[in-house]
């Protein structure tokens, strides 16, 4: 199937105040691929994701999702396929209860209440937060909110997952659950993160952004072992690849 | 100042509810026309902003005292008058429900006093006409300061009138005004200064936040006049209907009008006690706060205590009964809990 692929061609995005956040970005993500986008703060990761779902439109260049170019006319078509989680979960959870938040998407696509109920229950179960079902989101902890925001996009059965720093604020157990969840999700996924250990677990391929440009694009193992490159990009080799200082001394 | 339920009579509360509801449904119609469903989250979040921002205390230089932001003007500037008014209504409703600040019956008055004057009078007539000549930092400052002060003066004037017509306080109208207006001038100045500081800051940091609304409104000047005309007409209509109804039994409204015009009809109180009228008086929702002379007190507002001894006993007994009902229910519930 070709329709879960993502193609960017020479994408440039400049914020209204003149800040050039994306500078000539081109890459292609194939169906079923799992890609990490890493880079220092302000590198342009969030901006990149926003252009993929048409919240920001590139000043020039072309983005295609599946076989459909991202334009104002195709937005609803494209957004139906994509599940997008925000860097800040509070921005995504605006309903009175977790259930309503997870049901928000399915309801907008006019499913019957019984179908909505099924989708919500399934999504809550996958993320492991069935017990939060009736809680109001503003009373949850940061990590719980994060989990709910993930359930809220899974309930829409997306073909492509875009996640902005999904493992931030998660405790080790929830993080592990997220990693397993991502491994189970067989469709295309694009994840921005500073959690390089998670990248190692989840993504085969890694794209390094810096100052709005692609600095490297290749297999995760290669890139995360390239200490010089990581250092230039303001990153650090993931702990699991660092040779243990205690063992080294021996 | 928020009106409280206890300070308002059902008639005044009802009139103000009707008026505010009228303004709100007109506003909803208006924003539906050019929505922009993008505005819904903006309204919601800005409402929360105002709610929260009202809790920050700002020190007033040289006085040691502090004040906080008002909200109505700021919302009108950020969202336009219609959305601003609706947002203010939400904020006040939440305050009434969760903090008992104001009250459910007085909510209509509070929306009117704090939302209507700011969004539909002070904002278009003052802020906007100052800004019209072209936006500068100085004009924004002066505009939001003046609009806040005048909005609050109107609001407090309206509080005085509402309390007065509800017949709650014994204070004569003039002394009440002399008490309230200067206090609210001071409060208004502080609110105005804070609002002005915030708006000018936003203008210099992110002018586009203020721009779209300001440019949009310019073309729609006419609708304000229409809205105000409609509201005035309906207020007069409702008011006259109610006072016609009210005039058949002596009430605060009439008393106030009599006091002002100076021709009290004392004789009407004598033939009040026909059975039918006393029944009407019983079911009327118009409290008779009006009566000051002894004669009238006896004929109209009986101190409902009867002979004081039986009154006291009856009152205590009622309270006792009320509390025992509570205790019995509780006992019953505890028993059931244990059995389960």
């Amino acid at each position, binding site marked *: 199937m070709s329709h879960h692929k993502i193609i960017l061609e020479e994408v440039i995005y400049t914020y209204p105040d003149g800040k050039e956040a994306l500078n000539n970005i081109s890459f292609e993500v194939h169906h079923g691929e799992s890609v990490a986008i890493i880079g220092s703060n302000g590198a342009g990761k969030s901006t990149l994701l926003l252009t993929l779902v048409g919240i920001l439109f590139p000043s020039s260049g072309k983005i295609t999702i599946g076989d459909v170019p991202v334009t104002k006319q195709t937005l609803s078509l494209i957004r139906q396929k994509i599940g997008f989680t925000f860097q800040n979960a509070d921005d995504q959870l605006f309903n009175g209860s977790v259930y309503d938040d997870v049901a928000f998407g399915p309801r907008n696509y006019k499913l019957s209440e019984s179908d909505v109920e099924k989708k919500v229950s399934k999504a809550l179960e996958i993320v492991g937060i069935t017990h939060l079902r009736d809680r109001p989101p503003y009373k949850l902890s940061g990590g719980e909110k994060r989990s709910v925001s993930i359930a809220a996009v899974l309930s*829409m059965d997306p073909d492509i997952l875009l996640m902005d720093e999904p493992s931030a604020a998660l405790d080790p157990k929830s993080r592990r659950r997220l990693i397993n969840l991502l491994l189970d999700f067989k469709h295309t996924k694009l994840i921005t993160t500073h959690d390089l250990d998670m990248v190692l677990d989840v993504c085969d391929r890694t794209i390094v952004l810096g100052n709005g440009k692609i600095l490297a694009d290749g297999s995760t193992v290669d890139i995360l072992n390239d200490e010089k490159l990581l250092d230039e990009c303001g990153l650090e080799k993931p702990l699991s690849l660092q040779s243990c200082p205690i063992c080294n001394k021996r | 100042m928020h009106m409280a339920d206890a300070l308002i009579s059902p008639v005044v509360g009802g009139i103000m509810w009707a008026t505010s509801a009228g303004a709100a449904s007109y506003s909803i119609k208006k924003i539906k026309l050019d929505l922009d469903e993008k505005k819904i989250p903006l309204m919601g979040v800005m409402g929360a*902003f105002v709610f929260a921002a009202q809790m920050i205390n700002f020190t007033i230089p040289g006085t040691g005292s*502090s004040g906080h932001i008002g909200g109505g003007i700021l919302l009108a500037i950020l969202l336009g008058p219609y959305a601003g008014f609706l947002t203010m209504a939400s904020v006040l409703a939440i305050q009434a429900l969760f903090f008992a600040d104001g009250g459910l019956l007085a909510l209509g008055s509070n929306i009117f006093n704090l939302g209507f004057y700011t969004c539909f009078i002070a904002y278009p007539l003052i802020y906007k006409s100052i800004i019209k000549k072209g936006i500068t930092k100085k004009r924004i400052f002066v505009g939001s300061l003046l609009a806040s002060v005048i909005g609050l003066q109107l609001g407090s004037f309206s509080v005085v009138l509402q309390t007065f017509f509800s017949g709650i306080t014994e204070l004569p109208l003039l002394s009440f005004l002399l008490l309230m207006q200067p206090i609210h001038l001071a409060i208004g100045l502080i609110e105005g200064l804070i609002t002005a500081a915030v708006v000018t800051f936003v203008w210099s940091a992110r002018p586009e936040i203020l721009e779209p609304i300001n440019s949009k409104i310019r073309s729609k000047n006419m609708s304000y006049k229409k809205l105000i005309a409609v509201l005035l007409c309906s207020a007069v209509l409702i008011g006259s209907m109610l006072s016609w109804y009210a005039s058949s039994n002596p009430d605060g409204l009439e008393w106030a009008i009599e006091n002002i015009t100076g021709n009290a009809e004392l004789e009407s109180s004598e033939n009040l006690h026909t059975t039918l009228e006393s029944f009407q008086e019983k079911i009327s929702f118009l409290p008779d706060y009006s009566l000051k002379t002894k004669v009238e007190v006896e004929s109209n507002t009986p101190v409902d205590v009867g002979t004081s001894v039986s009154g006291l006993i*009856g009152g205590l007994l009622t309270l006792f009964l009320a509390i025992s009902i*509570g205790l019995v229910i509780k006992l019953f*519930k505890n028993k059931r809990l244990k059995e389960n």
Partner: protein
Amino acid sequence: MANVSDSIYEIRYLDELSQKNSFIHKLHPLVKLIVSIFYIIITVSFGKYEILSLTPLTIYPIILFTLGDIKFFPILKRSFLVLPVVLGLGIFNPILDREPLLTFMNFAITGGWISYLSLIMKCFLTVLCALLLISTTGINNIAIALRSLLIPKIFVTQFLLTYRYISVLLEEIISIWTAYSLRAPEQKGISYKSWGPLLGQLLIRTYDRAQRIYNGMVLRGFSGEFYQDKIRFSLIDFCYLVIMIVFLLLTKLYNIPLILGNILTGV
């Protein structure tokens, strides 16, 4: 800024109460809203000297407290918050209205004191009523009640969103205030120079947040329509409504305490 964290706590407390599952909680929200408003209207409709007639009205909050499984003192404590305004305005009554209305064991009690007392009682009763409404109903159900009163969706949605983001904004304010006061100790409020930047920046952040929330909505298929729950009326709702209205009308029509007192003292 103690009052900010207090209000977060306040809101959450009432919110938690509204999650209970008592008889009162299970009633249709519209019924509860109507009864509350009717109760308030009846309460304030009594004349300023009619203190005795107010006493039967205490039954209503007592029933709500017990049947609704609501703790008495925390709610009572909250109702004190509103009292100052009423106390302040009402104090003119005893000062200005010195007409003796009652003699009680040779004491003359003036009309002013009686009307002051009735004002305070009304204040308590109406405030309790509002607080009990929210703590047995909850914001989502209030929204349902508003919808069944045919209040437009735009307004109700907006009302819910405001409520939803109040906690977020209050938390932001707390952190701003903490950050400010850590670097500016010994200040009671925020000094003039920081007024604009401090609130202005929060406002801009809030504005951007609204944008992101909106994005979050459209990304999940939002097109201007919000889903809203409905709750069906039951026979119990209807009975509750009728009983309450009849009770309130009775208290308005008959001076129950006086009748009781007269029977007891044999007048």
